[in-house]
């Protein structure tokens, strides 16, 4: 069974670890903004109760340095490229998409519409998607927050203004306090929470959107094992991206592919397309409820 494996944006640098990037079907860059950003002050990461919190703050060299210096080196890595873009206004997204539209080697533009660690744009997600669509003919994926109140409705709206796909989901905002001092463990306080505990939340988002729209979906959130990939496919994802697991295991893409093959075969699936979508009222378990 083959399911395309990507990295989640911000969870891999293909230039410092090309051997990991080449294990993937496509490499997704760290989010690029029109102007360079130093990012947030450290400490930027903490682990709490099975979650990872991060507050990197979109550190990146800016659109021009990315286009002229980083992108050529990324092309040399030899994997299809998804460029994640972000900003603080519709104009920022438009600027990024216009510039990337001119460039060879950018296969997909993923709009980061959901970073929990920087200020949000004043415009709505739909307006940001519309502005981006007007600036490029390249494939446009929208990366959404799991904290979206009605994510299926949002998916319908952005499909209507020209999204080509969805990346579901980004991190969920959380706060970790030092047990002794009761002060935040990250310099700016809250951060984006990720890890295996995000998986059921992400699955619910994928399932809701797959039921609402026909767009292809990249499932993201706590994938650690091959069987996690099967769950995302069952919920409606056509590809998946690895995030936090890459930090603890850079060889995870190879391991997960092997596990996916074994898990799929054990369940009698020859391809991802044979996995049926769960429908309401079809609850089932193969084991005792008291697992």
């Amino acid at each position, binding site marked *: 069974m083959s399911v395309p494996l990507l990295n989640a944006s*911000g*969870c*891999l*640098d293909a230039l*410092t*670890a090309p051997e*990991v990037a080449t294990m993937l079907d496509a490499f997704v860059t*760290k989010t690029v903004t029109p102007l360079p950003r*130093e*990012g947030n002050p*450290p*400490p*930027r*990461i*903490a*682990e709490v109760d*099975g*979650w*990872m919190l*991060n507050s*990197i703050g979109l*550190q990146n060299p800016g659109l021009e340095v990315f286009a002229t210096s980083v992108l050529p080196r990324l092309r040399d890595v030899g994997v299809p490229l998804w460029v994640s873009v972000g900003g603080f206004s519709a104009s920022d997204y438009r600027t990024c998409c216009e510039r990337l539209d001119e460039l060879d080697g950018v296969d997909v533009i993923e709009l980061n519409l959901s970073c929990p660690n920087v200020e949000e744009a004043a415009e709505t997600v739909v307006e940001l998607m519309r502005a981006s669509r007007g600036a490029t003919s390249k494939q446009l994926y929208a990366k959404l927050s799991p904290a979206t109140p009605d994510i299926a409705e949002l998916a319908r709206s952005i499909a209507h203004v020209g999204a080509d796909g969805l990346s579901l989901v980004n991190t969920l905002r959380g706060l970790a306090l030092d047990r002794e001092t009761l002060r935040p463990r990250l310099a700016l306080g809250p951060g984006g929470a990720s*890890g*295996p505990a995000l998986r059921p939340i992400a699955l619910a988002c994928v399932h809701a959107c797959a039921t609402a729209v026909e767009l292809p979906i990249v499932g993201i959130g706590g994938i650690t094992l091959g069987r996690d990939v099967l769950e995302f496919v069952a919920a409606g994802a056509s590809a998946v991206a690895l995030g*936090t697991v*890459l*930090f*603890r*295991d*850079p060889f995870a893409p190879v391991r997960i592919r092997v596990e996916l093959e074994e898990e799929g075969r054990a369940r009698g699936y020859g391809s991802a397309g044979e996995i049926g979508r769960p429908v309401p009222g079809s609850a089932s378990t193969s084991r005792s409820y008291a697992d």
Partner: protein
Amino acid sequence: MSVRGTEWIGPYVLLRLECGELGPGVPGQFFMLEAPGQLLPRPMSLCLAPPGELAFLLEPIGPGTRALAALRPREAIHVLGPLGNGFDLDVRRPLLVGGGIGIAPMPYLSEVLGGPPAILGFRSERHAEAARLLPGAEVVVEPRLVTELLPGDPGDVLACGPEPMLEVVRQLAPAAQLAWEAPMACGYGACYGCVVQVDGHYVRLCVEGPVL
């Protein structure tokens, strides 16, 4: 990698692992150690590299380091490394300076450099028990500080310790090689979590350091 054993040294624990196919790397480089039950591995610089073994000195102060300290012989953990940039060993008059758990890389560094002079500082006599990992070192206990013992012409200083200590060492010996610490998720440049400020810009300690 299989655990050979753990040994308490004062409040610290020396975790000894079978090295398998991993080499020890350059002193000052680090390894990412899987901490059982934790989501993220923990970065540790190599303390000792006897034949067939990699040994790490750690201070069990949180869930990750406590899980590592609780490992039993023959248990196995994943280890990634050696990572980052270690000390530049092309030095004429090396002087090793370590503070607290920052003495961790000093025994292996001392071995590779042929036993140069060393000054170690600790916050209590109990912590100072770890000085036995570096026989012959000069040892001070708070309220005395290692930086008070730095000679006027300290030579080539190679230091590791708490940030305030490293800041003072840098003032007294501007050319000193300093091994820094930061929370790290990956250790190989992926997460941008471990940045430190260099010349006004944030750089990843795991890629640019940890020796800066």
